[in-house]
């Protein structure tokens, strides 16, 4: 992974000093609330319902065991002993004191971490596939490009005060695991016919109040021009994006208003001035970053003998077999596996993890996976380089930690925002809804029979739980001061990007598990053999689901 040099470290320490000074001036009354607001947001600090929330950046989701231990220390020392994995691969602390934040940032800087641009109207953390570098369906490791984008976007002087937040994701695989079509800019890495890296650039995607699938704006951008082309897009947006209404300020609204062709033309005009300019990438610069992401030196293993051993372990423990089938994935290197640590056991807020678990995970990463970890868009944690001979002992260890629930990708593995329990923006709670569904559908065999279902839950229109793109989406709404929930079906955050359709009138919190049951019963009735939930929906549409749910509800 990328290793900080003295320049990166110096930049971070200067940032800590800057924010310490800003916080002191704020506490001394020299900065007003509105002046301090963007400063603290660009350090990931929100003022929430009960306490501030601090979002720590994990560039493209990748971090190491030493960083994990420091995060555990922060959770213990400054917070209530836990943290939360967000859908954009970051960590969130829910209970820091404002006065402590400069010290927390200093502690983070000690392990080359920070909270820069994790919030605010600026370029946010660059996200990508959590299996980058080890996925079999990958064109090329996207992380060096993400790192180049990280450096370019960090403290970019022109784009610190955009009309609204700006999210960039990169995809380099056949299966999209980064939801890149739902980002302000989605970059898809491809190769031209000579094997040279190039990019497809999509613009104007996003969720929130107005969910939009991004549109293609450049189909074969040579790699040298990645930064200048994105700079041209950002400049057009910075100059022309709406600033009079925060709900119409995202780039998706501008692209829609102008039309993608007119927008592209405007970008081309800007780009003509800076194309080939000083932010053009050289092969030396790219190589230098790529050197940080060389594949590890995998020892040669006899894959077939390891598979025989796994087969006998499977017989020994059906639980192990189930976990192996559900929570591990094929690695591009023979003899290795990708392991997901499941952060969605019933009764725990989805994506939450304790300091004790974090320390233990750090040890396991050192022992079994090259000391590295990844946060996923699905709010789980990945050990990406586990030798197959270690799977049994790793499983025993994580099972003891409560991180081996074999539910990856099933109904009981929802994406879920912190909701009304924590968030000041939320209209409704989301965590209890997730838990009620997990409790009702706790029979794993039933869940496996249903097959993969993305259940996404947001506590408000801001859509942090990505409800629009869940196969089943749940949105908390406020109805005359009472919490209600709207259901949508048919969203898709993968390649076949789709926005879910609203089923009908909303329900009370108590009704939701039964409504979900009616939806699932309908699916079981009308599905064809081997047909996934989302495919059945595609075939039959909302009708049968609607009929069942609203008849039963009467």
């Amino acid at each position, binding site marked *: 992974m990328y290793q900080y040099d003295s320049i990166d470290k110096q930049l971070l320490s200067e940032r800590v000093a800057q924010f310490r000074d800003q916080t002191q001036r704020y506490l001394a009354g020299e900065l007003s609330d509105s002046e301090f607001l963007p400063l603290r947001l660009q350090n990931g600090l929100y003022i929430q319902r009960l306490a501030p929330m601090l979002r720590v950046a994990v560039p493209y989701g990748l971090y190491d065991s030493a960083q994990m231990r420091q995060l555990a220390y922060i959770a213990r020392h400054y917070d209530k002993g836990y943290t939360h994995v967000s859908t954009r691969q970051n960590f969130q602390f829910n209970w820091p004191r404002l006065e402590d934040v400069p010290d927390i940032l200093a502690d983070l800087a000690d392990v080359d971490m920070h909270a820069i641009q994790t919030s605010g109207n600026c370029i946010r953390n660059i996200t990508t596939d959590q299996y980058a570098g080890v996925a079999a369906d990958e064109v090329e490791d996207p992380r060096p490009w993400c790192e180049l984008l990280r450096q370019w976007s*960090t*403290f970019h002087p022109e784009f610190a*005060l955009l009309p609204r937040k700006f999210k960039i994701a990169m995809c380099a695989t056949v299966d999209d695991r980064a939801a890149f079509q739902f980002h302000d800019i989605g970059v898809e890495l491809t190769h031209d016919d000579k094997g040279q890296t190039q990019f497809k650039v999509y613009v104007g995607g996003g969720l929130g109040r107005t969910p939009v699938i991004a549109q293609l704006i450049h189909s074969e951008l040579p790699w040298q021009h990645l930064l200048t082309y994105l700079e041209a897009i950002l400049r057009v947006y910075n100059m022309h994006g709406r600033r009079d209404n925060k709900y119409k300020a995202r780039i998706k609204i501008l692209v829609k208003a102008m039309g993608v062709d007119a927008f592209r033309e405007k970008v081309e005009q800007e780009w003509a001035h800076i194309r080939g300019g000083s932010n053009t990438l050289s092969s030396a610069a790219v190589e230098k970053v790529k050197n940080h992401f060389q594949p590890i030196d995998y020892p040669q293993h006899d894959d077939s003998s390891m598979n025989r051993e796994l087969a006998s372990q499977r017989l020994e423990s059906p639980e192990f077999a189930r976990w192996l089938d559900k929570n591990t994935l094929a690695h591009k290197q023979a003899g290795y596996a990708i392991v997901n640590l499941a952060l969605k056991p019933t009764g725990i807020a989805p994506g939450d993890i304790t300091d004790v678990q974090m320390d233990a995970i750090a040890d396991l990463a050192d022992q079994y996976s090259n000391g590295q970890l990844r946060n996923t868009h699905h709010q789980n944690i990945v050990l990406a380089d586990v030798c197959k001979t270690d799977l049994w002992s790793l499983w025993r260890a994580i099972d003891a930690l409560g991180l081996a629930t074999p539910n990856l990708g099933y109904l009981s593995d929802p994406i879920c925002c912190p909701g009304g329990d924590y968030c000041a923006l939320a209209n409704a709670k989301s965590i209890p809804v997730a838990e009620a569904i997990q409790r009702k559908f706790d029979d794993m065999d039933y869940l496996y029979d249903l097959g993969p279902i993305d259940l996404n839950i947001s506590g408000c229109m801001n859509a942090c739980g990505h409800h629009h793109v869940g196969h089943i989406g749940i949105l908390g709404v406020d109805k005359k001061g009472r919490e209600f929930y709207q259901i949508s079906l048919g969203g898709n955050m993968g390649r076949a990007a789709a926005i879910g359709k609203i089923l009908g009138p909303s329900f009370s919190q108590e009704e939701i598990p039964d409504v979900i049951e009616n939806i699932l019963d309908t699916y079981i009735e009308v599905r064809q053999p081997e047909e996934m939930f989302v495919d059945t929906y595609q075939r039959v549409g909302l009708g049968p689901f609607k009929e069942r749910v609203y008849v039963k509800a009467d």
Partner: protein
Amino acid sequence: MSKLIKGCEIIDSNWTLIEQGSELPLQAIAAGDLVILPAHLWLTNQDILRDKANVGLWLDSHEEPATAFASATVNSSNQDEGEQASGPDSALLDCNTLPLIAINFPVFSDGRGYSYARQLREYYGYTGELRAIGDVLQDQLFFYQRCGFNSFAIRSDRNVDEALNGLNDFSITYQSAIDVKRPESRSS
């Protein structure tokens, strides 16, 4: 007389900012007073103002450089704003005849002026004084400077000596901008 940061120093501000909607201050101009006119006022009177070393102009946050400078050179004033973006390069001489250009930040969180500054420096080749005016505060100075501003009219209720610190928040940068073209050992 108010104070101003110019370059890295605090100096007295000698320029008078003329507000939007004002009459052309003919007497002051004739007397050699230093004035900064709203772009529109300057443009409508450009025949008598051209080459006057004591008259600068300021752009408001919704007035991108193309609208002002294209019309200064294209001269056929019948075009609407959208069509005037035709040839920013042809305006190069015009903006460099100005002794001062200012860009207004009605609120510091309106970041359009950063892009305007870069365009003035990069596309229009403007080399003169580029001043940030309006809600100009310490915590944005570092970015202003990187985008090509070289003078800063700090909001009058703030301590300009303290604000000066904002120019030195960071000693290194990741990406090239107006101030640093190729950051050492960085990506580009």
